[in-house]
């Protein structure tokens, strides 16, 4: 089990705020959508606190 950030694409405003604070460079604003790279994400939850929309959450994944 590991903790990872996930984005709710219906809530995300594609602003890139989470990209600016990710210490692992796991988030990327690709053209106009957010991509979270699981191999880099450490599940630290910094992006969750940053998100103006509440579009990010930390979940347990296999």
């Amino acid at each position, binding site marked *: 089990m590991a903790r990872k950030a996930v984005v709710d694409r219906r809530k995300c*405003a594609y602003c890139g705020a989470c990209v600016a604070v990710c210490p692992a*460079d796991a988030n990327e604003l*690709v053209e*106009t959508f957010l991509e979270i790279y699981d191999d880099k994400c450490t599940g630290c939850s910094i992006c969750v606190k940053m*998100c103006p929309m509440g579009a990010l959450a930390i979940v347990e994944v296999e």
Partner: protein
Amino acid sequence: MYDVVVVGAGPAGSMAAKTAAEQGLNVLLVEKRQEIGTPVRCAEGISRESIEKFFEVDKKWIAAEVIGAKIYAPDKTEIVMSEEMAGNEVGYVLERKIFDRHVARLAARAGAEVYVKTAMVDFERRDGKVKLKLRRLGEEWEVETKILIGADGVESKIGRKAGIIRTLKLNEVESCAQYLMTGLDIDENYTYFYLGRETAPGGYAWIFPKGNGSANVGIGVLPRMAEKTAKEYLDAFIEKEGIEGKIIEFVAGAVPVYGEIETAVADNIMLAGDAAYHADPITGGGIANALSAGYYAGKVAAEAVQKNDFSASFLRRYDELWKNDFGKRLRRNKKLQLKFIDMDDAVLNKLAGAIAGKNLREMSVAAIVKELLKAHPKLLWDLKDLF
């Protein structure tokens, strides 16, 4: 091979591309979005002086002109700053969608190539130049350039990969949300700022008029202090203030409140605007510094091409230029911001009460702090030499 590739067609990037192209350089301006100038991620306010330094003002990209600002303490004490003479508009609220395109168009007209819906995927410095991998509509290709200007915003890939900036901590960035509202009943001659920990912890809420009963109504909060999302704080603010209007646009974003970075350059690379954390740490305003930084980066790029020297030590000339222009203000306002976020609502009310009704003719952060220093020297003792 290009002389300059600029990544990001906001005010900093387009200004850099325009300036470099005007100096006769071979310039490419790349924007990952399919439309320049949208979404705005910005409250769009700028002082008249900052915009007129670089542009002939065109009504097409001015949404509103304001004569002053009204600042509200948590207990509603009002501080008014304004030029008393009619016709002395001190600030503009831009229509960034049009303004950003205008600056990009000027860059194109000066000779820069412009690619939209084109992302920079990666870059690598090799043999004294930069190889960039670009992607458009799924297709990737490589270009080479002598200089890479990173105007790729607060989430700058270039700045991090080049090791120029470090990732922002949650007390160095504002989490922001904003509605464009219409049908509002407000005096459109002023911009409005609302302070208070409960309203906007570590930041403020704003109303910036955009003409015809419309305004940007937004909020910035410091994530380290916030207990809910920026959007929730914004909705609470609108409810509490009884702001009635219809929402016709919504934007979110991050504003760096870092202060001055030590350097904005590396070999072959310069950063400008939000990518270099150039936004003002107290007001969050970023357009003015972005335009100046872009201009200086374009100028230094031309000198570097002429001297055929793209080393970080040569590009430090760019650091000197932007630091001389606004670096000191970034440092000073960062100190002020740290002081400000420490103030609880009682202190804010006390300070506002001390200068309410004073005639603040000059619309600037310094003007307020100078008055506050007169009224409450002890509270702001450690700032006294800065203002």
